[in-house]
């Protein structure tokens, strides 16, 4: 059981492990009924997501109900603005799944995908956990549908469980932890104390961090499980605090790495360690795609446009959904057609590129369909660095120093 991620700077996989959620909520989201026929000149993009359950009590930073969706809406507007000059029009068909998977999330997601594909939709944005992304991919296999995964960072989706019809906009966990590891290497912070949460996603994050540590010659000096409960969410009290302090005693480390993708306890750790040590990982200093502090490379314009449209700050999931919808628009502009048969193979070609407020054009890796992108290394109130860091070079592009490279990939696209 865990509560909805409450922090603004939640890790990229926002609210993905909802399996334990209570079904009781104040307000059921209404699945927006997509309009019927698609006009010949119109490109419909489907979006399947599951809104966070409303927070049960006062929460200063509750996940907004339109998280992700709002970013896709902005991108559709951007596509249509450009489309006025290229004679292309776009629309977004949103499908909100019931909150709480009840164990059959994959079936519901697959049904939604089949329904959208049945109505001629050939681009699907999916903001769902890994298993449901796979269910969607397999449900519409062979129908010429291109799927954009915007919320599941699982490396297996880019590895053993990769699918030819799926493109990954959200950076993999390996990319996120590589970005942090590069920064630590640059700073010569080598000794890590890894603290791992109780959930499966936390273990996966910790595994990714260990791989990154090996890759960049960092040392994991200690690894301990977090066994004190969701103290950050519970606004932890004094007795447990002393217990948590004892837990960090006697470890020789430069930096504490917290693996807490749900945001349950990671924010509890900074300033409560026995030794004065900075905290990074899923909280503290994080590697992410988007942040309110980002304003270079024209990001200020996107921040303003989003805030005016949605009345709130843009979050990583909003940005990732924006990137996905813009991928379709950008490919259509470049190829002068929105024909799915033309665009589906084009996304992975070197000619495709997506400008996305990162100072460089973004492309998809042909071997696993992961979007190459710089990641921002940021603390709650300031941008600290941008990965790939200076000095990390690669024969193809420095962006390929983040995540799983071609020689290491275990992805084999089955046709």
């Amino acid at each position: 059981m865990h509560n909805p991620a409450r922090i603004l700077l939640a890790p990229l996989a926002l609210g993905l492990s909802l399996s334990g959620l209570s079904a009781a909520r104040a307000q059921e989201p209404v699945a927006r009924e997509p309009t019927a026929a698609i006009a010949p000149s119109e490109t419909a993009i489907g979006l399947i997501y599951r809104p966070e359950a409303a927070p049960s009590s006062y929460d200063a930073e509750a996940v907004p109900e339109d998280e992700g969706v709002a970013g896709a809406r902005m991108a559709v507007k951007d596509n249509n603005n450009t489309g006025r000059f290229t004679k292309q029009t776009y629309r977004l068909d949103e499908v909100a799944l019931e909150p709480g998977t009840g164990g059959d999330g994959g079936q519901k997601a697959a049904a939604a995908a089949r329904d959208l594909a049945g109505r001629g939709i050939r681009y699907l944005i999916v903001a769902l956990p890994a298993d449901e992304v796979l269910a969607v991919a397999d449900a519409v296999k062979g129908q010429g549908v291109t799927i954009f995964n915007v919320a599941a960072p699982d490396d297996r989706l880019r590895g053993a469980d990769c699918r030819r019809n799926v493109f990954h906009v959200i950076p993999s966990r390996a990319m996120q932890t590589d970005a942090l590891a590069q920064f630590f290497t640059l700073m010569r912070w080598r000794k890590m104390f890894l603290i791992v949460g109780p959930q499966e996603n936390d273990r996966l994050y910790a595994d990714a961090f260990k791989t990154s540590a090996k890759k960049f010659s960092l040392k994991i000096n200690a690894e301990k499980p977090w066994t004190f409960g969701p103290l950050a969410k519970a606004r932890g009290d004094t007795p447990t605090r002393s217990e948590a302090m004892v837990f960090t005693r006697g470890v020789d480390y430069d930096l504490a790495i917290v693996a807490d993708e749900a945001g349950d306890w990671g924010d509890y750790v900074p300033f409560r360690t026995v030794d004065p040590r900075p905290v990074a990982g899923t909280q503290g200093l994080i590697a992410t795609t988007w942040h309110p502090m980002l304003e270079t490379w024209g990001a200020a314009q996107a921040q303003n446009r989003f805030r005016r449209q949605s009345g709130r700050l843009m979050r990583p999931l909003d940005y990732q959904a924006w990137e996905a919808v813009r991928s379709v628009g950008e490919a259509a502009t470049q190829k002068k057609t929105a024909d799915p048969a033309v665009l589906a193979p084009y996304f992975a070609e070197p000619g495709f590129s997506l400008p996305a407020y990162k100072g460089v054009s973004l492309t998809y890796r042909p071997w696993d369909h992961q979007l190459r992108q710089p990641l921002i290394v940021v603390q709650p109130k300031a941008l600290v660095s941008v990965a790939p860091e200076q000095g990390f070079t690669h024969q193809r592009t420095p962006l390929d120093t983040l995540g799983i490279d071609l020689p290491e990939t275990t992805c084999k696209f089955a046709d």
Partner: protein
Amino acid sequence: MSRGFRAGAPGTVLGLALLAGTSLAGFGLAGVSPAQAYTVYVTNEKGNSVSVIDTETMAVTGTWKVGRRPRGVTTSKDGKELFVCASDDDRIDVLDTSSGKVVRSLRSGPDPEQFILGPQGNLLYVANEDDSQVTVIDVEKNKVMAEVPVGVEPEGMGLSPDGKVLVNTSETTNMAHFIDTTTFQVIDNILVDARPRFAEFTADGKYLWVSAEVGGTISVIDVAARRVIKKITFKIPSVNDEAIQPVGIRITRDGTKAFVALGPANRIAVIDAKSYAVEKYLPVGQRVWQLAFTPDQKLLFSTNGSSNDISVVDVAAEKVVKSIPVGLLPWGVAVSPN
């Protein structure tokens, strides 16, 4: 969104044209003196100020307070007024260059970023970055004459030498939009590389150069044929290709040399504007964006955002001769006509 062209009273337009004519004559007379000293104006995006530099002493002679997030900057044809885009205040501040005070503000529409003054000096063409439009303002009457819908995040503004064709570049749509300045209709859209920031016509009006910051290229467009005839690319030893981000462009009046600011590559490229060969890279300050010549084209100034200074280039020698510290995050630069 489009409100189309709002016709002004024809009599007034004529009056303004006459007025502009008088001031041009005045400039001609003033221009004869040798070793002319000009005034350079630099907008400091995070300093909310304009740094004023005298080209004779190469020293900062003043810092003027303006609205928030000043970016685009230009002078009136007679040099008596300075126009500054105060992006975060959704207005254009007009300063009296003798006092350094904001004397009035123009209704620019939301988030003005860059603009260009028409040849008559009465119309200002403004890119509204947050609002996907170009606003045409009569600067005397402070009246919006037209709003032209363009692509997402309009920025670069170029005007053909005869004033008939306005070009706006949209950073997220990645197009150069050609706008007829009599009808204020978009007449053509040319796709260029990612994130076009700046548009500059050659003095003969035949070619348009458009920089693409993320694409890393300059597209040279044949204006009559309306197609890209050349893409100029850059390669600098020891600099990542990703860091080469062209923004500001200036081409000499005789059409022989072009200077292109390369952003975080911290260089200005010198290009043979006839053969399009990149001849050399001049090292300047960090994150160089905008460029401006002195009217005699002997000097070129660049704004270096990250190092909070400007670089001064001797155009004939193709050498950087000085750097001058200015305010926080220098963005735009303009030089007085006299």
